[in-house]
């Protein structure tokens, strides 16, 4: 690949063209912002009333976890910030079974592909007897949706160590698939 000199990063950036439309409509950040506003609950405004309250878009469902087991998933999205609550019927040596796991992440948009990826990072204490031994586990959620389909698919990928979110996973990513309503 063509190399770019270190240190030139900021200098390379120059004001580009004014914002124009691109693939599939509005620029993705603007589209998310507008969608969040559109989906927010707006109380009727009259003289002297306070500004509208923006509420999170929520979605919950039970997904197949590595085919035989279940992941109960609750997602709450505010703009592109995501909160996830996940409960696994089986821990696979990397997570507690039937415990509520929480994490923060993002709603990542890929407008040129009409795809959304829900991500979250769940930091867990060590699981005895698991592949990470006495180390904490960093469990990464990556769940994609095409268009407005109810079907989602993806992974819960465990890494050994606290705040370790890439590398060689502790075990093969746990497969997650199923139907999850579009957050609203």
């Amino acid at each position, binding site marked *: 690949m063509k190399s*770019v000199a270190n240190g030139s990063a900021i200098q390379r950036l120059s004001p580009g063209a004014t914002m124009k439309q691109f693939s599939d409509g509005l620029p993705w950040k603007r589209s998310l912002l507008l969608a969040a506003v559109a989906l927010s609950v707006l109380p009727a405004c009259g003289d002297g009333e306070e500004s509208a309250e923006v509420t999170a878009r929520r979605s919950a469902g039970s997904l197949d976890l590595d085919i035989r087991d279940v992941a109960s998933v609750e997602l709450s999205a505010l703009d592109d910030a995501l909160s996830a609550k996940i409960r696994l019927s089986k821990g696979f040596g990397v997570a507690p079974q039937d415990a509520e796991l929480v994490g923060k992440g993002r709603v990542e948009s890929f407008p040129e592909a009409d795809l959304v990826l829900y991500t979250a990072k769940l930091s867990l204490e060590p699981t005895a007897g698991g592949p990470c031994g006495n180390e904490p586990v960093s469990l990464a959620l990556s769940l994609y949706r095409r268009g407005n389909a109810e079907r989602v698919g993806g992974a819960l990928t465990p890494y050994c160590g606290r705040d370790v979110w890439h590398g060689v996973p502790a075990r093969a990513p746990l497969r997650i698939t199923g139907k999850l309503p579009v957050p609203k």
Partner: protein
Amino acid sequence: MRQYLSCALGLALCLLAGSGAAQEKYALSMFHFNLQYVAGGMVGFGLEDPKVDLDNDVVEDLIITESFAPVVELYAKHPDWGVTLELQGYMLDVLAARHPEVLKQLRALAKAGSAEVVSCHYSDLLYIAYPGEVWKRSQSLTADAFKRHDIPLGRSLFCQEGQSGVGLASVMASRGYETMVWPKNLWSFQHGDFDAAPLYAFGDRLMIAGAKDVNFDDGTTNIQVRWTFFDDGELLATNDWNPYILENFKHDPKAVAEYETKLTDLETQGFSITTVEKYVDAVKDRVPHAKPPPLFDGTWQTPSHNVGKWLGTRGLWPGERDNDVRTLGAIAYRELMAAEAAVSATGLEARAKLDSAWRLLVLGMVTDASGINPFRGEVEYGIAHQAEALRIAREALRDAVAESGAGLVCIDPAAQSVVKGVCEDKLRGAPTDVKLDVEVLSGNRSSETSWEEVAPGTYRAQIEIGTSDSGQMEVSVRIPGELSDALITTRALEDTTTVSYKRSEFTFEEFHLPLPTGLVSLGPKRFLILDQAYTRLAARITRDNGDVLLRDQTQNDEETVRWVFYIFDGSAEDALKLARSINVQREVSR
């Protein structure tokens, strides 16, 4: 007599032949092992019977203990024999982690020259369906695995499912490969049966016809080649059982002994039991390097298992989702390319992060995620790995953009640049009247086709396909083309050049093309370009008709789907520029 002996290598045993030239006899093998044979393990395969559920690592271990180790042990008993073992780099990592003694034995054989350990890629991925960078990253990972585990990487090249493409010739030298092993069926399907030459020219490299006997006698040199094994390596030591049938997938010493006897008999007949590498070394300076006919990219069991088996043709089990799996791979690839450009342009240190994403991506692009008969576990193995690769790629890209402080940026992987602001959208246009009468065959599923004029002579088609309440899973689109002898496409590993084939030079009636850049001609000056983020299917071409057919037999009937492709009128060179901008180095706004 001396001129007929490969004394330095101690290979050939010479017998007097009727022609007067001493016979050189070589017995070759290609044991194609695949640790991702059942990618993700057997969980869910026994639909109603969890007892057959064995997880990924257990199945991998069985492949090693029941089928791989016995073959290694057999050849370890015969230090004068040679064997060519092909495996993915990932398998070496697993051997090191869980079967170090087997790895040690393999290393000893390889360093002694008894085993040529061949590897094309780190994961057994469907590389011919993607831009060349995917294979290059995977091959680099495998080369690294071989180095880390101190196993010499063989100079021959054979890939998962016999995936072969002439474009490999352009990259082999730089990566230390010498000889392509082209599977015979992929050749004979394109040109009919043939008498194999001892060696072929393959660019500046060499090629042999895998699994095809050679009987060569030019009056000076007499060479015979026989293949003792050319198949999935898992099948020999288990008496022809594969890992899907786990109750029978067990080391069968009798089967190994029979094979051993076969080799011993051949040796008695004067055959040298040797590796592909040593055979080539023995003959390359003494035989002509024949010119092969023109060859399309494909897989080894064409026509029964043409590349469509991984790109749209349905297998045996429910849950297959070829287009979904392969488009996700294309999307993750594009994001990784953008992340690489962003990281490079901003100087952020993210090599380890990006490398881990590439590793997960190539694992997820495993062939078994969409063919030959993938079951749900394998499909979701591909999806899971690719989704995680996508997450990491996006995170790396986001970090790089944040590092720049620029907010919204336009990332151009071709220019390796990051520029403030949104990319000008060069791939969308205004709605326009139907430009080409494509035929959508979707049974009772609704379909709606809309067109945009992106630029004069460039049209974007978007086909929305509805659901079915009667199980209709097959969707096809026929794109009309003008029949001309010339058919233009690109080959795997050659993303910057088109190739023109002559239909009249082939014997097949139809052929499935993998379209690694998405491009195929519809006539002398018209091209179809798939947007691989929506349409990652094989293109069926025929010898006697200019139309192209895209078909997905695995489209879940409860789900809608969108297909997107472009029709371009112009030169092949400009069509390729467009294809590259769509699929190979896609500019993105982030």
